């Protein structure tokens, strides 16, 4: 099918293209452009920002405090992505090889939480993990059981159970982000695995390779692009996460998005916040570029 050249169909093209392009420019590019300009400005009054072309905001962003928060956000996002991959891969495999009538329902079961409001899901998790929540009580019951077993064999019982702080720390942030982003990982993995030629796996198993070897030598290389897509779809939102570290984190677990928010809502240093936003956008561009470079090299290799 050939595309129509816009010059030969000016009127339909104008009728179709003008509204979305107008919207995109006015309500996306212009706001982004203003943020970009502000990142080279400074506060020159209570409600005034002078765009002076200064690089001070970017210089300040390279201070150790901000660099370490950037590094930490990246580390947390990478850890979350890894955990999601480890949990999600077998789930995607199971859905791919599930019986025809079960498959769509399993997919729906993964998608339903993804459609549920993010805030409600975070709140639900917080409720479970509070110091009197069920997670702590479950751990307490296990602890008591262990203590009872010890007395049974004639040893001293363990000390009384003290609730562990599950919330308001880095652990909570990682768990919360995994909880929220797991469906993001499973869905692209599933669509990659689904496209896989299953006879290749059968051939590998027939020829004597074990399940693990088939997985590493056949499934993972063939599903590579899908895995990369899943990693990106999880990594990028996790890197810019605001709500989870804000609600579930402690004072030392803020991520870069929380620092940006503070510049706008509390510290009132818009130019610095603008510079941090653009640094986050650049970091995301680099991630996307790495992925598309990898894709290109794969194509050349063939």
């Amino acid at each position, binding site marked *: 099918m050939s595309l129509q050249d816009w010059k030969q169909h000016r009127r339909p093209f104008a009728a*179709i293209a003008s509204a979305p392009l107008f919207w995109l420019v006015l309500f*996306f590019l212009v706001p982004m452009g203003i943020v970009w300009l502000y990142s080279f400005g400074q506060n020159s009054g209570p409600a005034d920002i002078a765009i002076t072309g200064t690089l001070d905001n970017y210089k300040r962003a390279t201070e150790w405090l901000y660099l370490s928060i950037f590094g930490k956000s990246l580390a947390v996002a990478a850890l979350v992505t890894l955990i999601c991959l480890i949990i999600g891969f077998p789930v995607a495999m199971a859905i791919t090889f599930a019986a025809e009538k079960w498959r769509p329902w399993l997919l729906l079961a993964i998608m339903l939480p993804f459609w549920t409001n993010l805030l409600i899901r975070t709140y639900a998790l917080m409720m479970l993990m509070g110091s009197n929540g069920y997670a702590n009580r479950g751990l307490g019951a296990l602890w008591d059981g262990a203590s009872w077993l010890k007395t049974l064999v004639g040893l001293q019982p363990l000390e009384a159970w003290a609730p562990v702080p599950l919330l308001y720390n880095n652990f909570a942030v990682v768990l919360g982000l995994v909880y929220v982003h797991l469906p993001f990982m499973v869905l692209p993995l599933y669509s990659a695995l689904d496209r896989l030629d299953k006879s290749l796996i059968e051939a590998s198993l027939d020829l004597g390779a074990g399940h693990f070897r088939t997985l590493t030598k056949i499934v993972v290389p063939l599903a590579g692009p899908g895995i990369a897509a899943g990693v990106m779809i999880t990594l990028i939102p996790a890197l810019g996460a605001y709500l989870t570290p804000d609600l579930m984190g402690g004072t030392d677990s803020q991520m870069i998005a929380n620092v940006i928010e503070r510049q706008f809502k509390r510290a009132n240093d818009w130019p610095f916040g603008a510079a941090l936003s653009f640094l986050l956008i650049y970091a995301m561009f680099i991630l996307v570029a790495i992925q598309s470079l990898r894709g290109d090299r794969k194509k050349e290799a063939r």
Partner: protein
Amino acid sequence: MALFARRPVAPLEYTRKTWMRLWVGATLVFLYAPLLVLMVFSFNDSKRNVAWKGFTLKYYEKALNNDTLVEALVNSLTIAALATVVSVILGALAGVMLWRFRFPLKGAVEGVMSLPIIVPEICMGVAMLIFFAKVDWPTDLPWPLNLSAITIAHITFCFPFVAMVVRSRMASFNREQEEAAKDLGASEWATFRDILLPHMKPGLVAGALLAFTLSLDDFVITFFTSGPDTITFPVKVYSMVRFSVTPEVNAASTILILLTIALTAVALKLQGVKGIAETH
């Protein structure tokens, strides 16, 4: 006993392996247990979400008598409805534009169109905050015009999703149908209405559902664009969670979860379970 004579597990039937089943089961428990506990405790007759003290509906009564909460819910639904209508129109146009025409800088346009999808929410929120402050967008308009800033922001991140869905739907369109219609004397508009639109419809439905959920779900961008008097449901729940965790929040959350399930049921009815699985 045919009922108990199980077929042996074939090599590729991973789903029938016990450890796989346990793994999937544990994942589903992890995903659903918090939501179920939240819903159950919305009926709990106790101020604190700790122990079960008996069944009550009083927190639903409280939530529904909480005027700001109801107002926030109405606002959220209004915004989602408006944003869905505009996003579907803009997204359908954008999808057709990319599918049909060759034009200069097409790659760049495609790239910019996908930006609202990948730019971190916080950056979009910040951009919207600065933009509406810069143009002095009026904040004291009567309802529903006071929701215009939030609605505009929502449309901006929703319509590229619709465009993507519509474009991939159009890829399966047989161009000859359109040519035949034109040969038989149909005008450009009639061809669009009678040939293209019916083919596009499943894409439009999927896009609309996606836009509606995305809009209803959004917290961060709304948090930055909402004025002091315009509160949406997620923003309201956020402040409730922040300052006091009460069963009222559970009741309100349960109502929204049930709404999501209802929407999913609508989607199921319209597209079938396979259709949903394919569009995502």
